[in-house]
């Protein structure tokens, strides 16, 4: 574990932060631009994973395990979120026979 954290610290923290910003931005842009609900859920997962990476990096640099514990909880919650999301998606597919969110405009002003 000691060697591991030394090895991880070989890469400067800035690089982790930059990578996470890029991953997070890809996720947000995906949510905004893609029309397929499954891909939107994937993009949200990407956002959460960038957060996980950031937490782990900070955790190593602080030599404090809290961040890594946090990551486990985020993974669990993300799985639960996707389970409910996919269940609703199946229901939507049955009702309107599509997973394209452009069709979800019945409720508009």
């Amino acid at each position, binding site marked *: 574990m000691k060697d591991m954290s030394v090895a991880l610290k070989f890469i400067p923290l800035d690089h982790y932060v930059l990578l996470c910003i890029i991953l997070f931005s890809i996720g947000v842009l995906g949510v905004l631009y893609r029309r397929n609900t499954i891909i939107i859920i994937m993009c949200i997962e990407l956002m959460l994973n960038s957060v996980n990476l950031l937490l782990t990096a900070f955790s190593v640099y602080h030599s404090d395990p809290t961040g890594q514990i946090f990551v486990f909880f985020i993974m669990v919650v993300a799985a639960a979120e996707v389970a409910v999301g996919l269940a*609703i998606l199946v229901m939507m597919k049955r009702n309107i026979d599509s997973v394209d969110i452009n069709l979800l405009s019945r409720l508009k002003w």
Partner: protein
Amino acid sequence: MRLEDFLLMRHELLLTLIAIIILIAEIFTDDFKKQGIRPLSIILMAIVTIVGFLPAPTGTLFGGMYQATDMRLMMKNILNIGALIVFIQSASWLKSDDNQNKVSEFFLLLISTLIGMNFMISSGDFLMFYLGLELATIPIAALAAYDRYSNKSSEAGIKLILISALSSGILLYGISMIYGTVGSVYFDKVSVAYGATPLQIMSFIFFFTGMAFKISIVPFHLWTADVYEGAPVNVTSYLSVVSKGAAVFIFSIMLVTVFQNIAAMWKDVMWITAAITMTLGNLFAMRQNNLKRFLAFSSISQAGFIMLGIIGGSELGMAAVVYYILVYIFSNLGAFGVIAAISNASGGKENMSDYDGLYKTNPALSLTLTLALFSLAGIPPVAGFFGKFFLFTAVAEKGYWWLLTIAVLNTIISLYYYLLPVKAMFINKAETSIAYFKSDGWTKVGLIICVAGMVIVGFASVIFEYIRTLSFGL
């Protein structure tokens, strides 16, 4: 940790106990006896609500992760009251043919969201806060999609789950940066070490955005009306009152305690968003015809008013926020209760034009709706007036005169559209208004509680004074 320390968590433990009892009842009842679960859940919830008011010790648990102060217990009690009223109001709706075989699911999901909210309000660190928040939002999406064969309901469900997942992603990004800059996720450590370095300001912006989605503050409010319209009426009422109330409570606690070092900065942000939220919510509410959408936009503008108390930031401001949520629970649930009763009795009539001439056919329901709308607008005899008055006092005390002017102007605008349904019911003539119908006992009880709450909370100044004495130690 001693055994009696668990007494601090009594709200959460009791709610978990109810959830387990309902689960067992669900397993051991036949399909044609499922209706018995409705009175069972309501009675259990009533017991929990009453037990919550009994005096109990305060303190912290799990090394500061869980905090039970008098104020937080009061907030939980207020949410319990709201949930109890929603339970009572939904009883007649759950009796209909479509919902007969999924009664216990409704109560189970609702109780699990309530457990999540209670944990969220009691949280002392970001991990507990995040877990509570997710427990409070994920089951709500399943509830919004409760009508399995309705297109609108599935649309509301998918919109709610996508938006809540996106907003928690943004929120978590903020939390991770807070952790990165401070090196701890405990509120008391963060509040000391939090400064105004660029990364910390950015983390606050992400955090604020994530919470703004949950409370539906204006730039992030677009999901609200769609979800509120698509979801079943009783779920909408829960979403607009209890859910929003819990998010407001924890948001105000965190702004005042965790982010106290940058108070000058978040007050500016809140100033602008509160002004925009009130104004846009009102302007959009004016042009709505569907009453659920109408109340959705009204709840957006109410969120703007609630933010006034947070901006005040004083002990009076906090008390005003909590008091206003209490009033708001009674008034909004009163309005939603009438809409739900009419929608159930008339086969889904929810438009304002359907309410023409309602006073002639159903005078009691129209009077209740009128009283609730008056309370939301803040017209003197009912509690809404006092709630708004305290919020305005909290802002005026700190000298935010321009914000106060905008708020008062918005109250005047809101009077116009809150009176539109009243005009439809009392003045408009209609050839075929909704026929007279007799509501069942549960609906009546729910509405009577709401009306009594609106009147009593307004006149009994003891309640506000009591909340105010609590608000010293958040």
